[in-house]
């Protein structure tokens, strides 16, 4: 018994690893990222300590004297630097000439120090100039330190008398990496645009789901149910086309239909209407196309599930009802629909979740336009986390938005299970116990 249990665990291990890696980890990581202010600028893997002019500005208000002293340019030709130059293994004349002619000089910028170096008799190469100037660099402005310890020891070498608290303040002001924060959620909660995007998402899911993914799918399934088998399968095959066409091509077809120079414009032009971009003309138009584009893709899945579920209804029930004189509508009302509860639950639940997360069709068709009117939550999260003209991708905020989506998805699933009374649907037959 015990060994079979161990064997069971071993056998399930690959699946468990896959679940953890590919299903659980992304959600956990999203949750972790969402609690940070991570962007391109802060990096993902962690930050460094860099006393940049911007951090000096911050420090100037807290500890002005020290900040000014840190900002001092320091390229000083001192003994320590000269010794280091001797150790570089360059032509010996360089260090000797430096000591003789320039010892004790201080240069305000690196460029000026390097200009002096280039004037030496044994003109060092560009690379050597950089190596030499580094030996005299007594400034920490713009130098990157990988750890706090390195920063603190550099501050010590600079001769600055700093208390541990002051050092911590410098470290905080100069840290370039990300920090833990809950700001993302307060931004989401307070932004008027986020409320609008949430409304867009609700509208999008509700319209596509009710009109197409469940409503129209059910209609198609019932239609084909009453058709002779051959035309029914041809019909179902045609409805599968939007699902199996590559999404880029599928959207391109819609664009050809609805662009200024597209089919609708050409057709309407015959009746004297000026050409226009029907897809993006108004918010209503954009929504009309977004719902159709997604609906035509989504309806096929529901149709297949519902058709096969209908096939599973015993034929005898239909025959009996016909003998009793039931109309088609009565058959649908009293035989088909009551037995379709489980497939409808499944399709509704599954499609809600996939619609909540889907955005590629909208991205390709309207990109959220015109004027953000078709921007849904998943698209907004994508735009935030992975698109920014100035290259600063906001991973933290994007992750927070994605996490909100996960929470909404889970909540809705639980709600569906309750509404459809899942327990009675999967109750064990009494006879088997």
């Amino acid at each position, binding site marked *: 018994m015990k060994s079979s249990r161990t064997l069971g665990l071993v056998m399930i291990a690959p699946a468990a690893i896959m679940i953890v890696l590919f299903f659980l980890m992304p959600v956990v990581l999203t949750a972790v990222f969402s609690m940070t202010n991570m*962007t*391109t600028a802060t990096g993902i893997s962690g930050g460094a300590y860099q006393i940049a002019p911007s951090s000096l500005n911050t420090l100037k208000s807290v500890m002005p004297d020290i900040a000014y002293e840190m900002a001092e340019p320091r390229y000083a030709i001192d003994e320590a630097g000269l010794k280091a130059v001797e150790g570089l293994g360059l032509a010996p004349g360089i260090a000797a000439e430096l000591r003789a002619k320039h010892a004790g000089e201080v240069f305000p910028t690196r460029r000026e120090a390097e200009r002096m170096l280039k004037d030496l008799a044994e003109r060092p190469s*560009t690379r050597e100039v950089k190596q030499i100037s580094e030996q005299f660099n007594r400034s920490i402005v713009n130098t990157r330190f990988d750890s706090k310890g390195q920063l603190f020891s550099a501050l010590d070498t600079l001769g600055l008398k700093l208390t541990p608290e002051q050092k911590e303040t410098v470290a905080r002001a100069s840290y370039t990496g990300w920090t833990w924060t809950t700001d993302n959620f307060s931004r989401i909660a307070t*932004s008027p645009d986020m409320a609008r995007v949430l409304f867009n998402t609700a509208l999008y899911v509700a319209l596509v789901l009710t009109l197409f993914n469940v409503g129209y799918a059910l209609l198609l399934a019932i239609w084909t149910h009453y058709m002779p088998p051959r035309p029914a399968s041809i019909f179902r095959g045609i409805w599968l086309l939007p699902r199996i066409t590559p999404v880029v091509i599928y959207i391109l077809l819609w664009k050809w239909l609805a662009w200024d120079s597209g089919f609708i414009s050409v057709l309407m032009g015959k009746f004297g209407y000026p050409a226009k971009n029907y897809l993006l003309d108004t918010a209503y138009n954009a929504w009309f196309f977004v719902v159709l584009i997604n609906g035509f893709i989504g309806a096929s899945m529901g149709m297949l599930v519902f058709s096969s579920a209908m096939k599973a209804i015993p034929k005898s029930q239909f025959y009996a009802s016909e003998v009793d004189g039931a109309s088609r509508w009565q058959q649908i009302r009293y035989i088909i629909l009551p037995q379709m509860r489980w497939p409808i639950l499944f399709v509704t639940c599954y499609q809600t979740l996939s619609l909540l997360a889907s955005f590629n069709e909208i991205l390709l068709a309207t990109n959220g336009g*015109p004027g953000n009117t078709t921007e849904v939550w998943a698209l907004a999260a994508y735009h935030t986390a992975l*698109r*920014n003209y100035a*290259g600063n991708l906001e991973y933290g905020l994007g992750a927070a938005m994605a996490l909100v989506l996960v929470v909404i998805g889970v909540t809705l699933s639980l709600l569906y299970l309750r509404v459809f009374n899942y327990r009675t649907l999967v109750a064990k037959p009494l006879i088997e116990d």
Partner: protein
Amino acid sequence: MTILPTLKSLTIAAAILASTSVLALARDVTISVWAGGTGPNDVYRLDAIEIAAQQLQREAALKGEDLKITVEKKPYSGWDDFKQALTLAAEAKKAPNIVASGHEDIAPWSQAGLIVPIEDHVDLDAWPLNGIYENLLQIASYNGTVYGVPQDAESRPMFFWKPYMKAIGYSDADLDALPQNVQDGKYTMKSLLEDAKKMQDKGLVQPGYGFYPRPSNGPDYWQFYTSFGGTMEENGKLVFDKAAMTRTYQFFADAVKLGVTKKNHIGMPGDQWWKEVATGKAGIWDAGTWHYARLVNQEGLKDFFDNIVFTLIPAGEGGKPNTLTHPLVYMLTAGHSDEDTQIAAQLITIASEPRINALHAIKSAHLGISKAEAEVDFYADDRWAREATERLLPHANAMPNNSDFGTYWNIMWKNLQASWTGDKTVDAAIGDAESELKSTLGDKILIR
């Protein structure tokens, strides 16, 4: 008799010695370079590095070194894919040695440690880098450090379709004087809307085609903000000038209300926009200097100067005529060996020489990076390069290198679009932008 074997063994010894010394000096280096926004006209962004590699190999050979450089080139036609790919590759320590991208990337990329200061590896006082326009080199700096070498310069002028301007009453002399009138502030944004309306009223262009701006987000839209008196950054701090931004939003809302710009203009297919501006379907539009190459090479507009006059972006209320330069810069990425980075830096330096850089400038209709380049016959003989450099470059601003500028830009653009399409009133859009900027950037932005 004894001398021969001695000679023989000496020869062998010398040969062995020679072969080992060659082996010791032989170096095979692969330098990878990626460039964003690189279409068929912009190939010299990458090819220039390859030309530079040949030059450096020859120089090395003369010094007795056997250096072999393989250049791996990767062009990206768009920007979004490129920036995603670059940042993620760099985070995964798989960044190319050289990257050519917009100067505004310097701030976030340097803060994240993805790029290293180029001034640590090149001699800015030596030719050709000492000849680069000082303002371009400033644009390539951040925190007082030079991070990139400008790869090109450009500008984003206003284009007018000459035949329509004539049809609404401009003489040839008026059109010749237009660039100067714009520069002097005599021809303003108001005049532009009026002319666009006249073109439509006369039936020269269809409704919505009078003023036909860039159909997607881009740096062009900051020019309008400047034109209406806005400032992007002051003393290292971002600035949101409410009054100037209101006038900017209002300008586009007015253009839509007047019917000279389409409400649904943003998001239209790029190819369609190109065709329309190249064939005279639109009256007035703003676009980049490099569009000249596309119009002439790909869109078949052979008689450019007969059909089009270009100027600075006219002044709006409270502002000045201006244009924006958005140079791409060559940057060195972190995480490579010092030797490789050194070679990459040398390649960038050679690629910046006037003749080599002029290949890119002329082929892609970008502008040159140095005065010496403007004096190269090949460059000066090109009418477009010459006129665009003289007329536009002295008035060019640039976007700030500030790691928070991207966030500011997103908020500005989102609300501009919303007021353009009538989704929000101008006041509501400004209010939303302000509150989001406050909650997002806090004291990193000055709101006034």
